[in-house]
């Protein structure tokens, strides 16, 4: 019981942080005429959740982040929402799969893959939305923009996990 409550509270905090990141990175101007295109910095929270709590909770946090984030920035149910949703779903999926089935990647690799998945997913959605494949020309830009984002979030998480080994602050929240 106590564990569940703590878990819920922590999840709620994670959702809040992810939403804040989502909104904040929406204010960074990306030089593309597609609404809602983002770097994917909010992935750091998704990845952390996946690591600590597993697939189901990770997905929940990601979805809630998209809903709340778009509500706050006034893009709920707009094309930007669709893009954010597909981005979040694709990146969460990739990261979850990598975390579960591979051992060779550290957080850096997973988050890089997540960032790439996020951006590719967004572009595919934009393609469908705008009914034009010319959107794919932005793939190089987005991929390149996603790499530093993925790198940094991965390194940050790596660092956090290493720190955790020493101090054990996250252990209370881990599943097993």
């Amino acid at each position, binding site marked *: 019981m106590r564990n569940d409550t703590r878990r819920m509270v922590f999840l709620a905090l994670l959702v809040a942080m992810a939403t804040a990141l989502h909104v904040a990175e929406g204010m960074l101007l990306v030089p593309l005429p597609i609404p809602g295109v983002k770097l994917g910095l909010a992935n750091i929270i998704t990845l952390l959740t996946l690591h600590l709590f597993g697939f189901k909770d990770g997905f929940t946090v990601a979805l809630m982040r998209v809903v709340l984030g778009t509500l706050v920035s006034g893009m709920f149910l707009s094309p930007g929402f669709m893009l954010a949703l597909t981005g979040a779903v694709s990146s969460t999926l990739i990261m979850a799969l990598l975390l579960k089935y591979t051992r060779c*990647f550290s957080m850096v690799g997973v988050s890089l893959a997540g960032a790439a998945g996020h951006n590719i997913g967004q572009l595919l959605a934009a393609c469908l939305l705008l009914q034009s494949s010319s959107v794919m020309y932005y793939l190089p830009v987005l991929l390149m923009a996603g790499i530093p984002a993925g790198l940094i979030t991965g390194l940050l998480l790596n660092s956090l996990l290493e720190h955790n080994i020493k101090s054990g602050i996250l252990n209370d929240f881990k599943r097993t």
Partner: protein
Amino acid sequence: MTRADKILLAGLLLVSLLSVAAAGSRFFLLSGKSEPLQAVIMSQGKQVRRINLSAGGRSSFAVQGRSGYSTVEIEGGRIRMLNAPCSGQICVKQGWIEHSGQTIVCIPEEMLIRIEGAAPVDAVTR
């Protein structure tokens, strides 16, 4: 960073660079806003107005329909039917539209507001 991480990183960098090369000259960073939209207002089958939605500020104007005047309002890139003499008021209740392809229709008044794609011109000399 593990070895696999580094390979992945290198791989991603390679793919982006390759796609830059493939995209070639189309790889253009566009700055600024997206294309400005235009709204077309039709009344009783004829085009009454064509207006840029990207003009700043709030503006409104009257359009004559079947049984009287309706007021159309534009603000911040959106357009709506502010009031109309029809009994159902469906067009008014619809509220704002702002995306290409969206329409507001008032059937009793035979009026149509439709948002069209990118404006063909930046200004008109007259």
